[in-house]
């Protein structure tokens, strides 16, 4: 068996159900449904199941997209929303809890078939699926979408996993804008109209997770105008984009060429969908509660002003404290003295008052649950353990002092902590850490930087941290896909350390951990992989260079008139948008 385990069992389901929505997550047998609005109801069941069509579904958010172009976007909400107009090879299941973390085929008939020791992945497309312009979607369109999103200079917004894992052309492939040769990237083969084959440079057991990314949504080459494609996206999903006014609004209506028979995932209930951009968060929250709006697109949870209103009154039944798959944490750089001594790192682990940090981040509801592991509970591979326990998680000063003595700094030491100065909650958390470490004699200088430059110039530049003696950095991380590999590799694998744009902020480079990552990519069995991830987590906590603070939770609000509402853990605690309808 060389495939994601849960995926395999599901594949059968998809084939049997061909054309029906049985595997889409709305079947009574899976996850459960309910029609009673209650606090956290959508966390455990699909709320208000319905097939009623019609109406306008009104979204709003307080910012704008990075880009709605499926090949140029990296925000989780965008990956969620783009499924209205962009069908990917596979996608995640519309279901609550762990079931919602499973992948199901979308544009492809089945999940990927691995061969050649997980180095070759083959997908078979459904036949007769059409773009909004009426032309048929072929494997070529998928290949082209992957090429443009991963190999061109212009589209820099999205991740570059395909470029990392696919065998490159001899001499380096420069992308379809520069390299007009019809063969394109030779490691993606399209032997016939409906088959696409990916040849990888290394075994990669979790390739299906890449196939879920919006970058595999087909793009017709003739209609691609690069950076401007975001304004005339050709839809492959049930809705087409009528207008996108950058920074202001988007309007979608039904795609006449979409055929429900080819789409087991989507119900496509509303007739039209609208999005208002750059709205005030307070206004969005108030409108949600008054019924003037249906959904906050960004899914970051209600604002601080609305939180007491939601939790303190009758509105509470219309909200969910959704577990995200993100971790707020602080890294300790073992290259910066005195953190080269593990005891000094452990002193920090013991000294931090995590309750105070949690309160600063927004309290148990919007700040999140107190964390003791790197992997959040909603990510595959998570195991519960706590290597640095303290009474009530408020920090253990006695143990911290013990470690400080062992480190040779019985009276403490001074160090620096970086954070993003334009994120009020991160600033508050940094101040709280400064306060609690101060009690142990560790004097912390705060260094705030703009978030736009945080990874390119400051915390994400290992040289900067070392040269300036910055021992600690604030960080928040969410996985691109909910597996231990997707979560851990970019922040703990020593070979991912980059001179700029680094996300392994602790500059962790342990041979033991690196080897485990290699083993996991070759491991075909999902349970075995899951064990490896837990092992990495353990090693990392043993090494004490990551201080987990909170597992994110966001307070989501759902107006009572919405149907098929369910929190998807796959995307880190957002409502799954594709099946939303109106009562």
């Amino acid at each position: 068996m060389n495939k994601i385990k849960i995926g395999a069992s599901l594949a059968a389901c998809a084939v049997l159900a061909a054309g029906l929505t049985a595997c889409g997550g709305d079947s009574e047998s899976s996850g459960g449904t309910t029609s009673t609005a209650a606090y956290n109801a959508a966390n455990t069941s699909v709320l208000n199941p319905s097939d009623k069509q019609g109406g306008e579904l009104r979204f709003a958010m307080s910012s704008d997209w990075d880009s709605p172009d499926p090949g140029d976007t990296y925000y989780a909400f965008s990956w969620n929303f783009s499924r209205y107009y962009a069908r990917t090879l596979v996608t995640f299941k519309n279901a609550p809890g762990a079931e919602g973390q499973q992948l199901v085929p979308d544009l492809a008939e089945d999940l990927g078939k691995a061969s050649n020791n997980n180095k070759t992945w083959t997908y078979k497309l459904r036949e007769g699926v059409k773009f909004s312009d009426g032309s048929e979607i072929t494997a070529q369109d998928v290949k082209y979408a992957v090429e443009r999103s991963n190999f061109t200079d212009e589209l820099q917004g999205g991740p570059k996993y395909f470029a990392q894992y696919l065998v490159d052309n001899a001499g380096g492939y420069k992308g379809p804008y520069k390299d007009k040769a019809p063969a394109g990237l030779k490691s993606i083969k399209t032997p016939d109209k409906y088959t696409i084959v990916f040849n990888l440079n290394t075994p990669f057991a979790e390739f299906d997770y890449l196939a879920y990314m919006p970058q595999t949504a087909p793009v017709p080459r003739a209609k691609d105008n690069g950076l401007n494609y975001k304004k005339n996206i050709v839809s492959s999903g049930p809705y087409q984009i009528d207008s996108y006014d950058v920074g202001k609004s988007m309007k979608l209506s039904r795609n006449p060429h979409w055929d429900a028979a080819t789409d087991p995932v989507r119900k496509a209930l509303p007739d039209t969908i609208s999005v208002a951009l750059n709205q005030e968060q307070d206004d969005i929250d108030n409108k949600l509660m008054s019924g003037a709006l249906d959904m906050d697109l960004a899914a970051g949870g209600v604002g601080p002003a609305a939180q007491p209103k939601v939790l303190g009154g009758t509105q509470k039944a219309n909200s969910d404290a959704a577990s995200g798959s993100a971790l707020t944490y602080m890294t300790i750089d073992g290259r910066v003295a005195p953190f080269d001594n593990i005891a000094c790192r452990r002193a920090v682990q013991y000294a931090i008052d995590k309750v105070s940090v949690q309160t600063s981040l927004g309290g148990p509801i919007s700040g999140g649950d107190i964390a003791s592991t790197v992997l959040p509970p909603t990510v595959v591979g998570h195991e519960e353990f706590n290597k640095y326990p303290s009474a009530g998680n408020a920090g253990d000063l006695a143990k911290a002092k013990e470690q400080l003595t062992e480190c040779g700094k019985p009276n403490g030491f001074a160090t620096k902590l970086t954070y993003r100065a334009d994120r009020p909650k991160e600033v508050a958390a940094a101040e709280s850490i400064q306060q609690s470490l101060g009690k142990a004699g560790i004097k912390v200088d705060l260094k705030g930087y703009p978030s736009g430059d945080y990874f390119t110039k400051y915390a994400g530049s290992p040289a900067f941290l070392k040269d300036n003696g910055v021992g600690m950095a604030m960080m928040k991380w969410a996985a691109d896909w909910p597996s231990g590999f997707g979560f851990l590799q970019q922040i703990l694998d020593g070979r991912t350390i980059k001179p700029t744009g680094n996300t392994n902020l602790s500059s962790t480079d342990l041979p033991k951990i690196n080897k485990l990552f290699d083993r996991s990519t070759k491991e075909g069995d999902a349970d075995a992989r899951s064990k490896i991830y837990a092992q990495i987590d353990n090693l990392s906590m043993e090494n004490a260079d990551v201080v987990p603070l909170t597992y994110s939770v966001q307070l989501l609000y759902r107006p009572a008139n919405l149907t098929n509402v369910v929190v998807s853990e796959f995307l880190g605690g957002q409502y799954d948008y594709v099946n939303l309808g109106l009562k």
Partner: protein
Amino acid sequence: MGAVVMLVIVSMVTFGIFFQLPKLAGQTTDQLAASYVGKAPTAEAIADVKERLGLDDPLAVQYGRFVKGVFTGQDFSNGPSVEHCAAPCLGYSFRTNEPVLPTLLDRAPVTLSLAVGASLIWLVAGVSIGILSALRRGTVFDRMAMATALAGVSLPVYFTGLVSMAVFVYTFRLWPNGVAYSDFTENPGLWAWNLVLPWVTLAFLYAATYARLTRSQMLETLGEDYIRTARAKGLPERTVIGKHALRASLTPIVTIFGLDLGLLLGGAVLTEQTFSLPGLGSLSIHSILSGDLPMVMGVVLLATVFIVFASLIVDILYAVVDPRVRLG
């Protein structure tokens, strides 16, 4: 002519500050480029972006390219094809890849709505209160008005803005759906209604200044010899005040009004931030904080154009209002 020189100097200084200062502060062009790459800045991506944005060229070359774009337009590659940005082209945003000029023109009506509405209110309120105060010097009205005016100039606009939101929007719920900007062309009524709070908040600050200024000007003029002469000639008080005193007192007001309006049109940063109005002011702050250099250039230049233009108008108006002035 002076205006053109002004624009050139301002554009050069702006360019220098925003493009060169980061380098002086020790940042490499790689780091600069990396901030525009996105979340996966590989070495190749950085090199590509650096080339695409021309960040490695000397400052003079970059400035030259900018100026050339303004006069002859510029070509930009969006990937598969090349797009022409017609003159006057202010370039493309480093962040959103949107052309700068249309973005500015899109934001300008918001700032224009805010500035024009508020300035009408403060001009009428400020000047009439100032005149009344001067004419009734020492009365309770005068004292009250001047105390309020003094309070007005001492209050930060973002504080009055927040307080008025707390009271009128969130306590009395006069705007149950918030005060988001609404286009004049779509719904003039809603446009005006949603702008009432920003207008009044901004106007309060300026009206206070204008009332104080008008009062002191008026008092000074009333003490001039020619007013005394006019009164001694037996002219009715109405004529003395209306025809002579008012005219002389208002000339400096006109000057300041023009300059204030010019400055505001470039973006009422604090007011726009407080009320989340999507105008030029909030665009400029956002662009600066996100390092979107072409957008910053655009906003600053537009703001300067407004200021220069306003002072030109003021000069002309000045000649009209005050017959003693000859344009020199």
